[in-house]
């Protein structure tokens, strides 16, 4: 079997397993729902924490993603990856949460640079925190394309579909976000 055909078979097998789990949950099997949550919580975390930062709000939104999914589970028919289905809910809830926020989370560029320069050694450097702070520097519309494309690894076409944006808009935002992130993270990547 060719690699592509084999990959498609594996992907379809994953969809089938997810769909079977969902059917069990719909029949009242809460254990199956627990399996689903544990399986996909990291994927949802990447989207929600990427968008909202490591905050209590991110935790709340993360929970809401799975609760919304639970409520709308009958609509899932297994024709797409469950991870993508959850990511769609996650990105929409995250963008809604950002709209509601009164104050921007992002500090200015100089704040990030100060914090980076105050780190003493590479061992003390929390890369995760650095990336989180860099992401918060971006406006939500740029942050969302970065989270989906560069962190979650969706293609530009999938990113456009998830955000319901034209492909050209996604490409333009990715390019601009990339340039800005390069500047913000310059100290981190040039050691």
């Amino acid at each position, binding site marked *: 079997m060719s690699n592509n055909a084999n990959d498609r078979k594996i992907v379809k097998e994953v969809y089938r397993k997810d769909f079977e789990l969902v059917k069990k949950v719909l029949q009242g099997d*809460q254990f199956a*729902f*627990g399996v689903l*949550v*544990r399986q996909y*919580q*990291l994927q949802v*975390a*990447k989207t929600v*924490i*990427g968008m909202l930062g*490591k905050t209590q709000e*991110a*935790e709340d939104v*993360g*929970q809401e993603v*799975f*609760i919304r999914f*639970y*409520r709308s589970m009958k609509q899932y028919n297994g024709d797409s990856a469950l991870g993508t289905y959850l990511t769609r809910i996650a990105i929409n809830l995250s963008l809604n949460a950002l709209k509601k926020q009164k104050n921007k989370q992002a500090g200015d560029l100089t704040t990030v640079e100060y914090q980076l320069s105050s780190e003493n050694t590479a061992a003390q450097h929390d*890369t*995760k925190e*650095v*990336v*989180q702070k860099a992401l918060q520097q971006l406006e939500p519309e740029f942050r969302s394309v*970065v989270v989906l*494309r*560069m*962190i979650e*690894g969706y293609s*530009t076409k999938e990113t456009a579909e998830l955000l319901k944006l034209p492909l050209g808009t996604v*490409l333009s935002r*990715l*390019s601009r976000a*990339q*340039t800005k*992130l*390069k500047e913000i*993270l*310059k100290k*981190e*990547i*040039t050691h």
Partner: protein
Amino acid sequence: MEKLSQLLNRSFDEKLTNKEEQQLETALSNNPGLRKEKQEIEEVRALLSDYNPAFEEGFAKRVLAATDQYIQNGDNLFYLFKRFVFGSAAAIAALLVSVYLTDGAISFDSLLGISDINSDTILLALSNF
């Protein structure tokens, strides 16, 4: 240089035309600054793709507890709804039985309570005003 930077940026997410690809390849081989920029972008993207945050410990348990609560509330609401529906149905059934026992028939007139009224009764009532 700015145009080449834009081309380089785009190359990471877009399919360049053959002409653009050749242009970029030539520029990268001749331009150390552009090669450095490419390396920086690759490092930024590597940082982002390695970014792996997680929710606080016990997240799955909290989600399950929240959905249990949701199911319970949903069950409570359904239970109340069922009681309301059955109660209403019982009340309507009792009314129909009562009408039948009183009038010996279930008709629209008997339900409205005007089955005993005829035109003479109406005229008599009106003449008393």
